[in-house]
């Protein structure tokens, strides 16, 4: 059955089973390869995208649960003011090591800053704890979030 999705502002139609996870629809059917597969169980955050601005784990979100929510992926996140600031801070501080988790990290960071423009360390830890970085780039993730928020680098 055809399903209509709105990805990064563009309407897209897919014809796949309704229980297919959004991650795989994005990656296989729509060509958005930015969101990554890490665990398939909502445990690592590599697949994080936004549904109406909320960070969600697309690997455990079937497309029949998406409805008409606006989907934002890493490919489209820099279109917003906050998204652009976060992306620029990520490049400026050279946050990635291997880079595999970073799309998910950025999506969680943008969702945090959209909801809370001046997060404390505790706010950052709490919002970002669902995103695993196996290389442990966590210091720079914190710094980049603070830089994007307009603050100074505490560490």
């Amino acid at each position, binding site marked *: 059955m055809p399903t209509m999705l709105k990805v990064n502002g563009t309407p897209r139609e897919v014809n796949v089973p309704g229980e297919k996870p959004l991650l795989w629809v994005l990656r296989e059917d729509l060509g958005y390869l930015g969101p990554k597969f890490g*665990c398939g169980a909502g445990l*690592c955050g590599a697949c994080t995208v936004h549904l109406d601005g909320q960070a969600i784990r697309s690997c455990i979100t079937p497309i029949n649960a998406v409805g008409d929510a606006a989907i934002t992926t*890493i*490919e489209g996140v820099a279109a917003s003011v906050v998204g652009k600031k976060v992306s620029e801070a990520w490049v400026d501080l050279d946050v990635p*090591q291997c880079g595999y988790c970073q799309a998910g990290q950025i999506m969680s960071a943008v969702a945090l800053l959209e909801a809370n423009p001046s997060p404390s360390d505790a706010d950052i830890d709490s919002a*970002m704890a669902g*995103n695993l970085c196996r290389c442990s780039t966590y210091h720079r993730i914190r710094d980049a979030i603070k830089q994007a928020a307009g603050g100074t680098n505490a560490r």
Partner: protein
Amino acid sequence: MRADMTALSTDRRVVLKAMLAAGGTLAFDIQIAAAQGAKPNGAASARISAYVAIAADNTVSITSKNPEIGQGVKAMLPMLIAEELDVAWASVKVEQAVADQSRFGEQFAGGSMTTPMNWMPMRQAGATARAMIVAAAAKQWGVPAAELSTSAGEVIHAATKRRAPYAALAAAAAKEAVPDVASLNLKDPATFAIIGKPVRGPDTPAIVAGKPLFGVDAVLPGMVHAALLTAPVRGATLKSHDAAKALALPGVRKVVALRQLGHDDAPVDALAVVADSWWTASEACKLLVAQWDNGGRDKHSDAAFAGAAKAAFAGKPATSVRKEGDVDAALAKAAKVVSAQYSYPFLAHATLEPQNCTAQFKDGKLELWVPSQIPNEGKDLVAKALGLAPETVSVSVTRIGGGFGRRLQSDFMIFAAAIAREVPGVPVKLILDREEDFKLDFFRPAGFHKLDAGLDASGKLVAFSTHFVTFGAKGQPGRGGELPNDLVPANLVPDMDLGMTVLDSNVPLGWLRAPGSNALAFATQAFLDEVAGAAGKTLPIFMLGVLGAPRLVSPPKIPGVPDIWQPPAFHTGRAAAVTLEAMKMSGWKDEPVKGRGFGFYFSHLGYFAVVADCAQVDGAVRVTKMYVAGDIGSTIINPMNAEQQIRGAMIEGIGHVISGLKVPFANGQVQVANFDAYPLPRIDVVPPIAISMVRSDNPPTGLGEPALPPAVAAVANAVSSLMGKRVRSLPYEG
């Protein structure tokens, strides 16, 4: 991947053989490029060597030969070339090399070897291309090459005020004779403009934009997808299976039975589902019905391993790795003897990008796109496993979502190739799901140590022995399970005994970041913390006494092992310098401070000392601060990346001790299926980390690994101090 072992495994011999060929391959490589006429690469660029091509706009393409796993070589190697080529870093575009040993020599990411193996050869590659450009300018202008200088991608003749961009000379330079390495003038390090400056990863903007770079992102026309199902018991063979339900799922193309493929010493049987979507293939795997023959492998379990270690400790070690003096006599007459047993678990690599490989059989050729740490060996192993001529297999290396040693094994390349053979002409992308990725890992070996140390009346360490119960096969330790003959502090006392007993199991073993060392540092430095306490001292002060006067300590050579894999000499002065620096940074006191621990280790040619502070926060033990002092030689090539490598190593150390990382085995089965049972450190456990690098007059060495081992030890010792109870088994679980 240090040569700290008593016997070489097959893998190491392969790596070794190839490594011996390194060094000499660079000039050869440039010869090939020159002999091929340095054909323009693209519309308006001239290729001067395998590493350097220059475009009409003076953009410089530099080829990075080794796989990028997050260790930063994709910036580091081109920095070395760009420095001596004398171009502005902003004009450099980095390209990833394909796997081609004939052109690039060794291309593996492992053992923190990229820096020591390439520090001079890559600088020479840059200087070679520069010399060829200068020679071309000298000819065109009719002046001696000695009168020419270069700066930021331009050749300059000061006397006549002539300047030309490299781009104008590149085509002519490509036809110049390749100069002899001995004739090259390398820069004075004091004049470095790129080496030693912070440089961002060349892929960072693309990563941040979500561009497809990784193995899992490979997309080819008409590509199909594959998922794998293996037996619950590692190594079990496939008796029979029923694929009817899986095949009935819309989109499923084929179910392939793979038999005895993967690694020589840990082959597996598997069922692969090929479908038009990976999600479909993965769903279909759940519908497969398979009967497996465990072949007795289900007898292996943690309880059995612990029982076997206990039995081994009741007797003598099966093998003596090294013996000096008479340790029994020395212990008998020691003023004080400290004895303890230590143990640690199997660990998984848990790269965030699961193992994957894309393969296509077409027109008698096999092409692979793969995140591999050792693509040339992978190519050879694929050819061998499938009975193909090696020259019919080609490998493109993608960016790699974490390595940590897992991708030094090439099993997943063989699986993908075997599946691709069943769908000729069609590209197939195999991705392991997380559960299979854990099941099919090659684990950091668990281990057990019985340790004895003797102190004389003055509190000086005079005797040291360990009986190490490790894992392997037929009496030989497996990858990462060796007992080195230069174990600190045994190598520094007159009476010592290093003995080993190897347990057989069905647990496949593999190198994990700082293999061997990441476990031995815990056992030896935590034990030494106890010994120091018995001597009435804190560990770093006790260590300074054990290290003694600055000198090189060379372990005995291992018969039959080539020089490059012999254990390196250990410099007590460099060890003392980082110990003192860590003490200074942390304000170390002569008296113990509750919750504070120290660890030192030498591995991968790097000397590191770490101080960790911990405290109880909301009922949980947390590391609150870490101090790191390291010596990896004269130069930190890319400080931007160095900081990341060291922080990552510290946090991984926290993970080994207090995050609860372990891979239990029961009934021959891996007891971890996903990240909920493998709690890697997250952002909320990360402390501030202070770093100080001690510069010594030695060529720079690698940084991906050597900071980890002392971090494990320091955190363990900090927790022991905080809780007032010695942590002798990892992970610490309260």
